[in-house]
């Protein structure tokens, strides 16, 4: 594995789940929980004659960013597309549960200064959602993650990091949307129904999954940034994400709450305005929406590097601030 310093320079899209977990927290601070050495793979895959992974496709552990304990969940797309089965799901759920335990402990021990030690959860998504080989268990695990998210509301921040090849789709697409803060790179993709499934269900006229440009401008980081579905857009490097995490950790928790897109009646009403716009605009392509938000020449944004894009791109305005 690359050293922490080398990792920072590496492309995020090329880093595996363990490298991302190490690189997203301060140098030398990551400790893995239920690592491959513990040998807790899926008990269900061998029955189907499938290869197992000793980490079941997810790296979980703890690190630090400054004084703050950061519970990391990092999914591995190279193992069954990062899909969530029983063990994978349990690791995810327990990481949040432990972060909440840490929150209670820190509050007791540092009643006057717990905010500077406030735990956080960082999830590096790379997944298509439920693992079909153990689909029922995967489904139930998704519901448990959402349940833990609600427990974490108003207590600790949950931060999504999306910049790996598979993106964040299926059931994990709404898990991603339910976090407090979303950091993406242009290469990251976030949605519910993946391109192949839309094409299969709705036909090639509705969606041509082989058209990569179409795929990226429909669910990619730039589009999500313009829509305010992603809060931050960073370059495709481990350092890009790590540094953005450091910035987010400096913000008071009240500010973090404002990054949310769903999770209250007010936010539902704001989203319903967006659904009305979808009807009113009759948008056939995400670029129609970019134009509506004031980007005169949306096609130009597609090939723009991240620095220039951040300077010129106009985003949806939020009334809630």
């Amino acid at each position, binding site marked *: 594995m690359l050293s922490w310093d080398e990792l920072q320079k590496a492309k995020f899209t090329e880093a595996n789940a363990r490298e991302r977990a190490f690189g997203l927290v301060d140098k030398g601070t990551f400790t893995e929980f239920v690592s491959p050495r513990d040998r807790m793979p899926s008990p269900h895959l061998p029955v189907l004659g499938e290869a197992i992974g000793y980490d079941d496709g997810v790296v979980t552990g703890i690190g630090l960013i400054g004084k703050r304990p950061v519970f990391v969940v990092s999914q591995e797309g190279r193992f069954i597309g990062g899909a969530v089965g029983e063990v994978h799901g349990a690791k995810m759920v327990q990481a949040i549960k*432990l972060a909440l335990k840490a929150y209670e402990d820190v509050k007791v021990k540092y009643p006057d200064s717990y905010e500077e030690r406030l735990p956080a959860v960082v999830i590096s998504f790379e997944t298509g959602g*439920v693992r079909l080989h153990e*689909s029922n268990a995967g489904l*139930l695990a998704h519901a448990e993650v959402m349940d833990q998210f609600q427990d974490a509301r108003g207590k600790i921040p949950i931060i999504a990091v999306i910049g790996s090849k598979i993106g964040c789709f299926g*059931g994990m697409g*709404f898990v991603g949307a339910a976090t407090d803060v979303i950091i993406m790179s242009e290469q990251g993709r976030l949605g519910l129904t993946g391109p192949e499934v839309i094409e299969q269900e709705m036909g090639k006229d509705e969606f041509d999954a082989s058209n990569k440009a179409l795929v990226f401008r429909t669910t990619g980081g730039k589009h999500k940034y313009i829509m305010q579905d992603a809060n931050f857009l960073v370059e495709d490097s481990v350092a890009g994400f790590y540094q953005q995490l450091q910035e987010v950790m400096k913000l008071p928790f009240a500010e973090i709450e404002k990054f949310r897109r769903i999770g209250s009646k007010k936010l*539902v009403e704001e989203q319903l305005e967006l659904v009305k716009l979808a009807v009113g605009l009759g948008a056939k392509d995400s670029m129609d929406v970019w134009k509506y938000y004031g980007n005169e020449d949306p096609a130009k944004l597609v090939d723009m590097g991240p620095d220039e894009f951040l300077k010129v791109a106009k985003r949806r305005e939020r009334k809630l601030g």
Partner: protein
Amino acid sequence: MDYEQGMIGRGRDALEMIFDADSIKENLIDDIQIEAEIGPGAVVGTGLLDGEKATFIANDAQAINPRFNVVYFGVIGMEEAYKMALAVYSTIEADKDKPLEQKRPLVLIVDTPGNGPGKTEEIFGMNKATGSYQLALAEARKLGHPIIAMVIGRAISGAFLCHGLQADQILALDKTFGTMIHVMPLTSISRITKIDIERLEELSKDNPVFAAGVDFFHRLGGVEEIVKKVEDMKATIKKHIAEVREAKKAGQQEKLGPWGRGALGDERGGRVARKKVMEKMTEEYNAVADKYLNA
């Protein structure tokens, strides 16, 4: 009424069977009005269960959404999911000053084949819509509202996660009614996993982890009770509301909802790795916690 055909596509009929005669008020939670125009695939409002007020949220498989062509036959689209979320938040609002034991129940009538797939849905973020409804349900559940999901027809994959799996307890009509709970049919699982359909069929006879069906979900702890007769739906829902209310009063929230179903899956032998993994993680965390909490 001919029950032998099952209840698929009959969300509105189910409401009539479950709630007191003429008690159903659509799009109204006390005096809070929910926009009637949006999300025709979802029916929300207030009804009475032997005189007790409850919020209902059901799929209407007969409705089509003229604005979103993916919404038909019970599909939950963006408007539907947000409408369902509004019904939950409005219920929370209506009971905000009431003590825990007086929070009104929510009854979810489940018959949905999926969430809306489509380009428009992805551009505007279908994932937010379904996520939004789940967070609303989780909030209501934690505030004390008893939430019972009654699966009368299809409870498929992401749509079941959205509409059902955040409930305190899940009930399902017996499989003889054609009730379906699964992520994907075996034919699709076979195509995607490239495992022979014959082998999958053989294994699915007794493997609750991926096989389709109400009974398997029961073994995994995903379904609390199977209801054998349509006429029993009302009484069974009422029984579970009372049970849930008691558990919440006793501070036993961990026995309910997704977390409770985890414990039940362990008890029933369908999901036993989950607990071992969680315990191992806790043990390994405890060994290093001091270093991280006092950095």
